């Protein structure tokens, strides 16, 4: 049985003293992402001087001003401009959106299910989206079709989970989690089946690499397809953030505080599903961000979702940005993101578990 009774203690109180004061931690939380954003644009196999990168970035804005006041004349090559604007920038934006989105979806789900062990794919969205992508790959569909298929199947999987759980009237969240496990197992089996029948020299590696996750092929077309639902869903979760506290305390209590808990959980599930399906269809299956980052957030700002949700976005963005920068710079070949997030995420989570102050009961 999935136990909802685990609880984490106030270990954020223990970590806090290490940060010298509130201002420093606030600066760290809010300042890290912009710095990482720019630094990650500096880095890549095609060497561009940071000076050129900054000029390239600010030129379009500065040059909006009248030419006789200030103007930046291009002293960079077309290749440099292309690398920054066509390759690195969309990829960095994607890392920010996907990392932040997954972390917010994870934090919202952990509140909704009253369980800090829940990740955004608990209702089967990742398995569904993975199968959608594998199916499109086996049918030799184009990259847009792969995305559409992944997105559609991700949402389909969660819809099935929700319908399945609605047959049971009592203990809704527990049944929802169980239904998610059932649907997830089903679509995972379908992924294995597509792999089994796939051409082992051509299609099978494509499916395998796709599922491991990568932001290497993200361009503006992919971003335009996925950014609107992802941004809207993220915004809705940010606006609802304080009310997630009420669900995290208990359904009955939330209802007596005037919350329509059914509607509210539907909205949270819809938003988290849009975010995760969107993330999977441009980045593949990226685990750990949605599970680990909210924990890191709680250690920094405590369990109040009013602070935790925005902080989770910033931390998730930063985390995936670092991972993706490592992925494209560490070796000549790209390292799949799914591997790196877990290789870095798993020891970190193990460390959290090993701390006595985590207080699992």
């Amino acid at each position: 049985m999935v136990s909802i009774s685990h609880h984490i203690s106030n270990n954020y109180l223990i970590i806090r003293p290490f940060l010298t004061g509130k201002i420093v931690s606030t600066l760290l939380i809010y300042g890290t992402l912009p710095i990482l954003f720019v630094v990650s644009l500096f880095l890549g196999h095609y060497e561009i001087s940071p000076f050129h990168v900054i000029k390239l970035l600010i030129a379009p804005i500065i040059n909006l001003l009248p030419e006789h006041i200030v103007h930046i004349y291009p002293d960079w090559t077309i290749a440099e401009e292309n690398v920054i604007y066509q390759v690195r920038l969309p990829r960095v934006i994607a890392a920010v959106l996907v990392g932040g989105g997954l972390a917010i979806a994870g934090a919202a789900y952990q509140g909704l299910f009253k369980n800090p062990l829940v990740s955004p794919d608990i209702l089967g969205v990742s398995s569904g989206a993975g199968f959608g992508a594998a199916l499109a790959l086996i049918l030799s569909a184009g990259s847009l079709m792969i995305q559409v298929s992944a997105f559609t199947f991700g949402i389909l999987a969660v819809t099935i989970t929700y319908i399945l759980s609605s047959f049971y009237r009592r203990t809704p969240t527990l049944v929802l989690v169980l239904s998610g496990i059932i649907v997830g197992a089903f679509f995972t089996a379908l992924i294995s089946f597509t792999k089994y029948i796939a051409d082992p020299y051509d299609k099978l590696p494509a499916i395998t690499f796709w599922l491991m996750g990568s932001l290497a092929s993200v361009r503006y077309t992919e971003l335009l397809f996925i950014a609107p639902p992802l941004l809207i869903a993220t915004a809705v979760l940010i606006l609802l953030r304080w009310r997630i506290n009420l669900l995290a305390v208990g359904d009955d209590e939330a209802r007596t505080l005037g919350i329509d808990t059914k509607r509210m959980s539907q909205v949270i599930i819809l938003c988290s599903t849009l975010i995760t399906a969107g993330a999977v269809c441009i980045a593949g299956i990226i685990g750990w961000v949605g599970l680990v980052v909210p924990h890191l957030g709680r250690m920094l700002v405590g369990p109040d979702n009013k602070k935790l949700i925005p902080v989770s976005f910033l931390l998730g963005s930063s985390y995936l940005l670092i991972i993706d920068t490592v992925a494209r710079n560490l070796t000549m070949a790209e390292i799949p993101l799914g591997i790196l997030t877990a290789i870095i995420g798993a020891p970190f989570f193990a460390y959290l578990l090993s701390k006595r102050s985590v207080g699992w009961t």
Partner: protein
Amino acid sequence: MILEVVDAGFTYPGGSSIFSDISFSIQTGEVLCILGPNGIGKSTLIRCLANLNRLCSGSIHLCGKDMVKIKPVDIARKIGYVPQAHEIVFPFSVRDFVLMGRAPHLPAFSSPGKEDYRKAEEKIDLVGIRKIAENPVNEISGGEYQLAVIARALTQDPSLLLLDEPTSHLDFGNQIRVLEIIDKLVETGLSVIMSSHFPDHAFLSSNNVAIMQYGSFMAYGLAEDVVTEENLRKTYGVDVSITYSPDVGRHVCVPHRSGTCRCHEKEHPPCRGTPAVTVIAGGRG
């Protein structure tokens, strides 16, 4: 009339009837204490009043309006509900926990502001948990938790407070403290309905008492009329003595051991010489 319940009945889907034909009403500043043995349906009745379970028959009128027709958020502005303690997963601070009571007064897409914080602080002081306001709500004692939930319910600014066994799991001191706070609230015009399995509580915050037994109210009226030795024997299945205690200035209920009849005529067991305990205690000292 804050709340009027007429012929209320409840049955779990596919199950047997929990209670039926319950009627009562409560005015501003009144206390109704619902007594009854464990598992008789007191909590279910309170849950129905809190709009968590829907009645199968009969009706509940809140301020003259049928509760079925009132939006949940409007009910939450009138009724504060204090459930029995349960485990909370996330270590919200007591302050953040109390603040949650502002939910029915805030639009969906907003977070509490200064005024909401001020109201929460006010209730924290009212129930006297200022010292633990920063503590995680899942690491405070049972008594403190009960007070925190009461503070949260009060932060809703309700006219009626529902308390489900507010003193269960509490020691003597905390029981009295909770009951005194309830008394204080009633003086400010709040109406209170609470369930209890301690008949003493009926005398402590005396007003109206209902005894729930066999799926309905067996007795309902003023505490002195309802809490009788006969009624308590029927309710709890053991003999209970009600005596006036001049020390505490009120009636107290004392249960007898089950299976033993009331034997006023029987002498106390005779003492056999010097009690052995004294010898042992002396030896240790």
